[in-house]
């Protein structure tokens, strides 16, 4: 029995939106190499919408599939809508992730939120839902796999 769902395999084999946005409006980096997964998300914002989302990922099959799925889920959404994407909703869209992969590899939503926070900080604006994400995004990256 393969360890990953067909959906995970599809996103792993054909990752969507891979790359870097040179003039990104926000950048979010999460993960550390001790755990094995690192993700950098880049966003381009236009009229409060995520006009473009790209990422670079160092990690296992799940990490790559998660990044791809998050980029697909986020693209075109408003910033507020994008903040409602959670690790659980990403896993659901991927038709499940192996239990041991859920925490370590499911960093995509966190990286996206961090990119949105970066954008909000640069612009000096408040975005609904961002404050609540504070705890989720902060202080969780070091040595927690």
């Amino acid at each position, binding site marked *: 029995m393969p360890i990953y769902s067909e959906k995970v395999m599809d996103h792993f084999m054909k990752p969507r939106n891979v790359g870097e946005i040179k003039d990104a409006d926000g950048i979010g980096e999460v993960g550390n190499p*001790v755990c094995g997964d690192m993700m950098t998300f880049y966003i381009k914002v236009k009229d409060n919408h995520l006009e473009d989302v790209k990422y670079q990922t160092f990690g296992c099959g799940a990490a790559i599939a998660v990044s791809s799925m998050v980029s697909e889920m986020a693209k075109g959404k408003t910033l507020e809508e994008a903040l409602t994407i959670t690790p659980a909703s990403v896993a659901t869209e991927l038709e499940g992730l192996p239990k041991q992969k859920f925490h370590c590899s499911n960093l995509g939503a966190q990286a996206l939120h961090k990119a949105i926070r970066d954008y909000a900080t640069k612009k000096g604006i408040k975005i609904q839902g961002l404050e609540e994400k504070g705890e989720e995004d902060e202080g969780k990256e070091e040595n927690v796999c």
Partner: protein
Amino acid sequence: MEAERKVYLDYTAAAPLLPEVVDAMLPYLREIYGNPQSIHAWGDQTREAIEGAREQVANLIGGSPDEIIFTSSGSESNNLALKGLAQAQSSKGKHIIVSAIEHFSVLNTARTLEKAGFELTLLPVDNYGLVDPVEVARQIRKDTILVSVMHTNGEVGTIQPLAEIAKKVKEAGIVFHTDAVASAGHVPIDVKGLGVDALSLAGNQFYGPTGSGALWIRTGLRLIPLMDGGIQEGGRRPGTEDVPAIVGIGKAAELAKRDMDSRSQKLSRIRDRLVNGVLTNIDHATLTGHPTKRLPHHASFCIEFIEGEAMLMLLNSQGIAVSSGSACTSRALKASHVLIAMGISHEIAQGSLLFGLGLDTSEDDINYVLEKLPHIVDRLRQMSPLYAKFMKQRGG
């Protein structure tokens, strides 16, 4: 998706039985079924089979047949050796020494003994994974009762200077065990020449059945059994003997000894082709373990900026089976303790890739891997933030 070719290079994880081994075992799964402890013709037949296998396994490592205890696996042999020898000597002292790169069946057994009141020292290794015999001598204390250093590491292939290590341990009058699971059947081993007191091996590592192991233990050495039970294996390993498995490991040992030179020559030649090909065609790839003091059928690498499981999955999509010591491929989600002990950073250890070549491996298989792997590495690097950073730094 159908791959162009199927290339299995994970022989250290599992290997097919040799046809001669299967043929030797089959009668004991069918018509020959007596209990070896029984006093009748049925028992005579299986007893004879077991004693024949004992001789075959003893011959492989230069021991005597009455020094062989059959077990269910390399892990059991290691458990039996460490727990059995430590407990048998516990009145003399409580200090145990093992290397930092041991298999978990040694490392975790030593940690269990530590919890039970023994004291544990882990020996460091150098960048090649070698234990320094001088360091072993330095760590020996008055209350040291047992030292265990593996003959060969299965993850990086490095063969230890075991005779020199054993010499230091024996000079101090301490019992010395070695885990030879990765190497027995592949490289010449002579327990007398090495000067060890106990040695673990497993049949599934040399084309015998999984579920077959043995512990060689020098005559006269006390050993407390792991289980209480009957008189099988001299009371040291009770439980009705698994006759087919024992016959299987015996036959596999006989064939391994007979064909060792030819197998080793063939495999090290194509292994060298793989190593040279990977190091030539892929930038920022390193061979892990010692370049020459290593197993003939083994190649291990770290490929920088990318992660092992992703490589495994893309290789699998091309019909190629290998393994990795990356955190993501381990259920414990920790990078290989072997690579970390060798001073390799977590980041680089994530790109670990292990190739175990086998008797069916051909030069064309290796050519196929060398054709596919560079593209896979390139593809993953193109999406790696670590590679992007490296390229920027290099460019800037």
